[in-house]
């Protein structure tokens, strides 16, 4: 069975966001996920930052401090090569999960 716990889902959302938008800070990630999902998904800051740092430890994303357009200092995250691979893996796992869950729901 593939790795498809909820943590994996948050990872997937973050990785996908970064792959689409390039470099982004934590607040931007929260905002993007909220907007892109039409307010259906909201990311808890309490889990986002630990997840970001864990992924950074795993080498999936890199970070650096930079200035925003409003001249504020923020920490920007960016996908690494390992992260790109991980994203593919996570997307595949998620498809499996969705297929599996759907099959269960349709079963009657």
């Amino acid at each position, binding site marked *: 069975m593939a790795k498809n716990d909820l943590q994996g889902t948050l990872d997937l959302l973050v990785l996908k966001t970064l792959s689409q938008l390039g470099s982004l800070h934590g607040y931007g990630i929260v905002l993007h996920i909220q907007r892109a999902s039409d307010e259906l998904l909201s990311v808890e800051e*309490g889990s986002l930052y630990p997840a970001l740092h864990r992924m950074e430890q795993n080498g999936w994303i890199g970070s650096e401090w930079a200035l925003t357009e409003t001249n504020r200092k923020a920490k920007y995250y960016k996908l690494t090569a390992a992260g790109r691979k991980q994203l593919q893996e996570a997307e595949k796992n998620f498809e499996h999960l969705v297929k599996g869950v759907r099959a269960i729901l349709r079963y009657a």
Partner: protein
Amino acid sequence: MEPIRILLSRCSALFRRRNLDEDLDAELSSHIEFAVEENMKRGMSAQQARTRALREFGGVTQTKEAYRVQQGLPFLEAVLIDVRYGLRQLRKSPAFAATAILTLALGIGGMTAVFSVVEAVLLRPLPFKDSGQLLSLHEWVREDPHEFNVTAPDVLIFQRESKAFTGEGGYVGAGYDVTGAGAPFHAAAERVTASLFPVLGVDPLLGRTFTQKEDENTAPVTVISYSLWRERFQSDPGVLGKTIDLDRRPYTIIGVMPRNFEFPLDAGRLSRRDLWVPMSFTPVEKNSEGSNYDYGLVARLRPGVSTAQAQIDVNRVIAGIQPRYTAVAGLHLQGYFRTLKEETVHSARPFLNILLGAVSLIMLIACVNIANLLLVRAASRRREFGVRLALGAARRIVLRQLLTESLLLSAIGGTIGAALAVVLVHAAAVHLPDSLPRLGEIAIRWPLFAAASGFAGVTGVLCGVAPALASMRTDVLDSLRDGSHAAGQGRSQYNLQSVLVILETALALLLLVASGLLLRSFAKMLETDPGFQPQHVLTASLSLPRHDYPTQQKVDEFYAELQRRVETLPGVRTVSFSSNIPIVGQNGGRLITPEGHVRSVGEGFLIASTYLVQGNYFQTLHIPLIRGRYLDDRDVQAGAPMVAIISQSFAETYFHGKDPIGLRMKVGDRFDGPMPAITVVGVVGDVKQGALDQPTVAQMYEPISQAAAALGPMAAMLGVAGNMDVVIRTADDPSRLLPSLEKIVHQLDPLLVVSRAHTMDEIVAATESSRRFNTAILTAFAAIALVLSLLGIYGVLAYAVAQRTREIAIRMALGASRKVVLLRTLRYALTVAVMGVVGGLIASIGLTHFLKSLLYGVKPLDSATIAGAVLVLLCCSALAALIPAQRAASIDPMRALRAE
């Protein structure tokens, strides 16, 4: 790969903690600023925007915590926190911490040090190849209790005849004046057979050892020690082939022994040999059967041969020697052996075993004390744990914290203990008495340190955690509720503590009795009259080489001239020479047969230590004359009748109380032998020939001028008496005379070495040092034990008083007087102490006989000593109890009850 990288990153995170925290803070606050900005864009006021942003963000602290948990190593961090917390707890109760740590350090340090010494001296195999196979052979005569080594002819016979051994090496001590290697000095040497080094299985560091041919042909070759090589030849690798002069004869150096090589393994630091020469028995030695048993014989047991078989073989060889004892009719020669190791260490064993026993007791007391302290502490913190559990702390976490605290104590105590052990072991190597062998091998043994620390650590953990665990099992509310209910819980613990204190007190009494016995022995030794007055006396040894002083006449002329010149020095009272001096004298004696004495079957030999003297020997040492006269000028004249002076115990033992003046005796085992008869002209007091606590032996004095004649046919073997001790009585400090003495000796003979120069006071003090050391160390142990057990009594009482403040206050409020409270507390202390004393007395009666070999003039169950020890213990217990008792008596009932 991945997990390792994560682990590394986490570990490094542990040390970058501060940086990472700041980083996270900055990141989170930037996030909140973004949100505030966004909210303000939507038209909120700054205040509203911030409140909203913070609310939406949720718990900043929780986020940080979650971040931390995955960032670092949570377990390790928790341990670090526990350690920091534990240290704070210990700092909060410094008296407890200091006592516990000191107790542990003393126990662990003392234990490690003593075990290290015992291991080095008693347990470690000797530094020879397969040293367990090495045996030391001895001979003895069934008719006499003395134990001998073997004779020179028997060394050769064993080498030739025995079958149970792969090799036998003979050795005998010798001394040489060494010249041609720096300043002349007197070297301690050993004559050894060519087979000795191969039997020991030791190879030289440089060169080779002796060949059989060199041994047989009296080749002038020598093997030198590592220290001689280093000090006199600056570790010159080209030393082989160089010559040094031994007693003014050139010897070629053919080998250097390794650094740690020592043989024979005699007791003491000064026993190390400087060099070895071939045995090369003289013709006289080869024919000296039955007369000189000074030769050591070490043999290597053949593999597969049992000691019983070896004994049969030795008996067979001895049976072959027996017929040669025809000259000494009626004597039965016996042979036996023991391992070389046993031979080396057996005299050191009693003292070291006692040391080991004493330090084990200290360790036990230390552990009991730690147990006690931790029990008290755990009990006094019951409420704290109750509060923490009530507030939701997990039991696991509270336990982990307690465990950390216990281990922390053990760790600090262990570290100090290790430092203490290092210091003690170094001190031991320098200060241990010279009566012990293998002192050079003493080094700290870390496995023993680990064992001692482990023992203490386990005690700490058991006693720290077990009571806490027990109290946590009970209802949390129970521990929070104070007063009557808690008192019931405390009672069983109180009893446990009482038992521990009784145990401690008993052990302390045992050590007190032991140290008391040794102190009394030491005092007795100091009171012992050496039989002469050691003050203001200088002694030194001279060894006239036989080649330059071949006749007794030459020797006598030298000493007569030396006496004449020294007597002219200012401050010199009297000058004399003797072949033997008290306290450090040689115990080897001569067989004596008084006229008319017929040795009955099975009777031992009559042996007297001989002093060949010249000059005013008795006046110099102030040895009192009891009957007859001293030796004087008329005995020195040519053709004077042969005379001797005997000591009092000699007169009593050998002449059975008869007035010995004018009676005759002969050297040898029969009066009808070929030896000349000697007439007794005087009786003097006994002098102590060995240390003051050694038994007195019979002594006889002869004028040196008659020595050659008195020896008769044996003179050729023993040679002329060229080795003498100079004994000078001075008006003031005798050590100031030494330079003048050396100057005069060198005027007479520039190559002569003045060795072993000491004042007689120094010599006496040196022989006291061994007993002084034993006594001091056991007394120190007893003092430590006493202090520890007093701490135990104090701790239990202080705890009890603190726990019962309420109870005592109620009693006082109901009319109990301060005196009653005081006495009740003291009564408890004395009850415990008396029970401990009873236990200690039983232990003393059972165990003090192990001290017997260390006692002098005191019986193991000396009632005065035991009474003194009991008195000291009881008084000290009462003192230790007084402080908490007074605290109990000074409780203000109103305040105490209000505080509850």
